[in-house]
């Protein structure tokens, strides 16, 4: 009889082990980022940030025993290509979460994310439209409008364009001139001349490429007004150039601990720069959310991930971050470029 019990116990233990083995599976997420073309440099940094976080988690045994895999698709920063990639990842791979970047592609995918209930995670794009594009789109950094509110208050005490007009006016400023620029533009002289002619005290600049050229042309034309900008100003070559001395900008505060940065450098042979940190942080948020979904014994879907993220709401990754809305509140600094360095002027606490 005892032998029968022992046999049954062994069988039961085997069954439990087998069930556990079945349960511990690979959970697949997606990433739609520009890996070729003009956006490739940033897109690759973003991909590395996500992959680095996932590799770390997998090396520690995964999330509750489940290995994580991220399938990346190259959208070349094009909205139409992003739609194709989105459909491929959701229909064929059945992913519940997709990491994305760049405003145009993200805005294009947002309606699909709502319809298919897939969680889109943006940690790099800042167009104002992203804030309300989809309940299934979360932004781990503020929109341009959010940063402009901060710099406007600074700009009047010294601020996308529409938010500047609104925020700067609300803070007591007057807009005397405005000029548009195109992505990739490097000849800013005509626009600078026209703005200079209006004799402003402050010029707010929101460009994602060509900042160094703009700074040099500003210096060459011997202009005197203060130049203010957002986190996009944190370009090392611009900061190092003497022509940018006096430029003021908001800066999202995100730092990697030295050992983490060293591991990243050892793995990819490149520094862990802003976008890599941002996406590493975003991946940590998603992994923490996944942990809660699995702990609650819920299926991993876009819907359960979305709900769990807002239940957790506050995250402490590389930066403290809170989701009161789809767009996270994060701590921010106001910095001034001075003699080749980016110097802290003022700390803005988590709002």
């Amino acid at each position, binding site marked *: 009889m005892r032998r029968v019990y022992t046999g049954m116990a062994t069988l039961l233990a085997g069954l439990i082990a087998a069930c556990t083995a079945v349960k511990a599976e690979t959970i697949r997420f997606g990433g739609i980022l520009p890996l070729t*073309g*003009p*956006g*490739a*440099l940033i897109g690759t940094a973003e991909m590395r940030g996500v992959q680095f976080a996932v590799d770390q988690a997998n090396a520690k045994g995964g999330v509750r025993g489940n290995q994580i895999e991220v399938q990346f698709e190259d959208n070349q920063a094009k909205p139409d290509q992003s739609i194709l990639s989105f459909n491929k990842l959701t229909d064929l791979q059945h992913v519940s979460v997709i990491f994305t970047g760049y405003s145009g592609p993200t805005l294009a995918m947002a309606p699909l994310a709502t319809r298919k209930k897939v969680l889109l995670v943006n940690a790099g794009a800042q167009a104002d439209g992203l804030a309300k594009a989809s309940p299934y789109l979360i932004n781990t950094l503020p929109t341009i409008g959010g940063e402009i509110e901060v710099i406007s208050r600074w700009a009047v005490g010294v601020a996308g364009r529409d938010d500047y007009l609104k925020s700067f006016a609300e803070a007591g400023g007057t807009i005397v001139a*405005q*000029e*548009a*620029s195109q992505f*990739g533009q*490097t*000849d800013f*002289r*005509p*626009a600078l*001349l*026209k703005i*200079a*002619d209006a004799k402003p005290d402050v010029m707010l600049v929101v460009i994602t*490429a*060509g900042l*160094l*050229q703009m700074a*040099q042309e500003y210096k*060459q*034309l*011997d202009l005197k007004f203060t130049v203010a900008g957002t986190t996009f100003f944190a370009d090392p*070559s611009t900061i190092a150039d003497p022509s940018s001395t006096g430029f003021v900008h908001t800066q999202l505060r995100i730092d990697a601990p030295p050992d983490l940065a060293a591991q990243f450098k050892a793995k990819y042979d490149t520094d862990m720069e802003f976008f890599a940190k941002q996406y590493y942080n975003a991946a940590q948020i998603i992994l923490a959310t996944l942990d809660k979904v699995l702990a609650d014994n819920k299926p991993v879907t876009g819907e359960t991930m979305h709900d769990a993220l807002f239940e957790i709401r506050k995250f402490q990754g590389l930066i403290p971050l809170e989701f009161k809305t789809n767009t996270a509140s994060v701590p921010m600094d106001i910095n001034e470029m001075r003699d080749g360095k980016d110097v802290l002027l003022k700390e803005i606490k988590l709002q």
Partner: protein
Amino acid sequence: MLALQLLVTGLVTGCALGVVAISFSLVYATTKIFHVAHAGIYTMGGYLAWSLMAWHMPLLLAFLVPVVACTVLGALMQSQLYARLARRRATHLVVLIASLGTLAVIQNIIAAVYTPNILQFPLDWSSRMVAFGPVRLNWTQLLTIVVSVAAYAGTMWFAHRTILGKRIRAVASNPTLADITRLQPQTVYIYVIAIASALVSLPGILVPLDLGLQPYNGVTPLLTATIAMIAGGVGSITGAFVLSVAIAVLQNLSLLVMPGEWSIGVTFFVFVIFMLFRPTGLFAAAR
């Protein structure tokens, strides 16, 4: 004051565009090939110069070697691509697609080798300023004006005063007759694209010296230059140059009365209207 500075800035841009336009005009008027890959040669000239300067090559050599390299590349494109297609009686559309493909290959190789980032030339003197009363220009801008005007004058002299120039004009005028009279059009086409490539490498180096290098920055100047060539009269060197300067100056001066985002649209709308009344171009009779 603002108008004067905008005018001069427009002149600088226009002069550089003018050289792109006369080089493209030479190719198109002679070979009838819509040589889009010309934009790739424009871009390549700048990147080669940047590499040579980064390797501390003497400045003059760093300017001259890319010009020679672009000349050779242009000649190879004609002899190894366009001439082969012509022998197989490829249509204009097929040739255009081949040219577009070549452009894409050049751009992607450049982006792969140099990254898609904006690169700057490691030169201090290029951004030093010279003031002429209220107008401020840097040394690169001054050099651009001088080199561009010299390139225009040189091209005019070459086209009208040399045997090869006259031979090119004869082939452009009537390729069939030129073939019968043993002017060897296919050989002339190689010379033409080689010369045009050397010419386009000049603004290809000078413009990025001032504004930085990007792998995809050759297409916009080429499109504007094409419009200038058509508006100036296909085949007219003077027309292509003058209209390029006019377009650039108009674009700059239009900022006095409208926001910058409208300037390109309005400028080209003016040219569309102009073309309705003079479809052969402003200098069509003055070849």
